[in-house]
């Protein structure tokens, strides 16, 4: 009886020390092979390439060359665009999510918005770039209206790219932040009001501190989302805008006569920035979940 119960207990494998590993590992071989071949190996190739000069000697020279004006400004532009669209998309996405969840708007608008956000957050790349060209480009739908307001918007500029990125940034914010807003319990607000708190005090001392990890985490995720985007920028600017993903595209196409090692270093720099932001995101997300039990 004890043997039977120990077999079904969660600690069952420990009861059979000789077979602790056995052949169970065979079950993960396909996944590990796939991940190794299509994720780890290509990344390792870039990493080792970034640490070698053209003669195969180990060097850090490639990384030092990232400080060259052209490459440094590509990083600066990428970071700037990602920051602007993450913060802008984050704030507007939060307001939009709050409007349909707790702003007293009809319930069907919430479902409609969520569906729309699911579509729009994936609407990137060539279709998005074309849609913005048709709307704000030289002969776009809104161009006459904007011109009559005295604003000139160059479709190849950073501002235009940021406007286009916002199209997928704030829907993503809505999708990710909605559960956190749902998690704000009505009792907390009522409790605060019963104790005489003003609306501002409720936000300052209750809602905002609870939402802060979610807000920060999601904004960081939006940053990474914009930082890694390539096709939208390439299509909208015709490959002329100098951001990191476009610089890497130039390396892939061999458009520039350049040291391949620098291209690999450029790629690894992106991986580092992405790793930091995804790491911060999952850390903050874990913190945010404390309130949702």
């Amino acid at each position, binding site marked *: 009886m004890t043997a039977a119960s120990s077999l079904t207990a969660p600690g069952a494998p420990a009861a059979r020390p000789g077979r602790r590993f056995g052949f169970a590992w065979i079950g993960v071989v*396909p996944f590990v092979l796939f991940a190794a071949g299509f*994720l780890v190996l290509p990344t390792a190739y870039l990493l080792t390439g970034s640490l070698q000069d053209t003669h195969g000697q180990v060097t850090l020279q490639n990384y030092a060359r990232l400080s060259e004006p052209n490459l440094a400004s590509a990083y600066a532009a990428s970071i700037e665009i990602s920051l602007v669209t993450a913060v802008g998309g984050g704030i507007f996405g939060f307001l939009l999510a709050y409007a349909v969840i707790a702003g007293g708007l009809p319930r069907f*608008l919430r479902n409609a*918005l969520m569906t729309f956000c699911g579509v729009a957050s994936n609407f990137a790349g060539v279709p998005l770039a074309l849609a913005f060209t*048709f709307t*704000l480009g030289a002969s776009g739908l*809104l161009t006459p209206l904007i011109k009559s307001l005295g604003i000139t918007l160059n479709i190849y500029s950073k501002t235009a790219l940021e406007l286009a990125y916002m199209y997928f940034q704030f829907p993503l914010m809505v999708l990710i932040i909605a559960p956190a807003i749902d998690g704000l319990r009505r009792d907390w607000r009522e409790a605060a009001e019963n104790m005489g708190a003003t609306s501002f005090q409720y936000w300052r001392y209750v809602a905002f501190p609870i939402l802060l990890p979610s807000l920060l985490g999601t904004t960081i995720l939006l940053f990474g989302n914009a930082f*890694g985007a390539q096709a939208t920028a390439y299509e909208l600017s015709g490959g002329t805008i100098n951001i990191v993903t476009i610089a890497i595209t130039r390396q*892939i196409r061999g458009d520039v006569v350049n040291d391949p090692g620098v291209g690999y270093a450029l790629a690894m720099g992106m991986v580092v920035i*992405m790793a930091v932001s995804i790491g911060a995101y999952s850390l903050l997300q874990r913190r945010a979940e404390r309130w949702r039990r």
Partner: protein
Amino acid sequence: MNRLSRLAWWLVFIIGFLYFFLPLLGTFAFSMRSQPLFSAYAVVTDDPQFAETLIYSFIVGVLTIIVSIALIVPTAYWVRLRLPRLRPYIEFITLLPFVIPPIILVFGLLRTYSG
């Protein structure tokens, strides 16, 4: 909820709606520039190459889904039941595609496998 703040939330919603809708409207309006109306759509659907690319994209999409499910579902099941100790490592691997942007992955794949 007083009337003023509800008005403000409606305003936020309307701005969001316009942001969604205007680029799509712009695209549609552009497609209507060829005369007669809707002729651009006729041209596209009559083009055999368009049908070919559409079917190709569709097949690639479906194949990706099938391969992903065939690979991930058994692995997740197996790790959960038989190898719980591997879980953090497997989770780390599944996070990698978010850390490595597609363009970097393409770069690495090309350099690794195209001779």
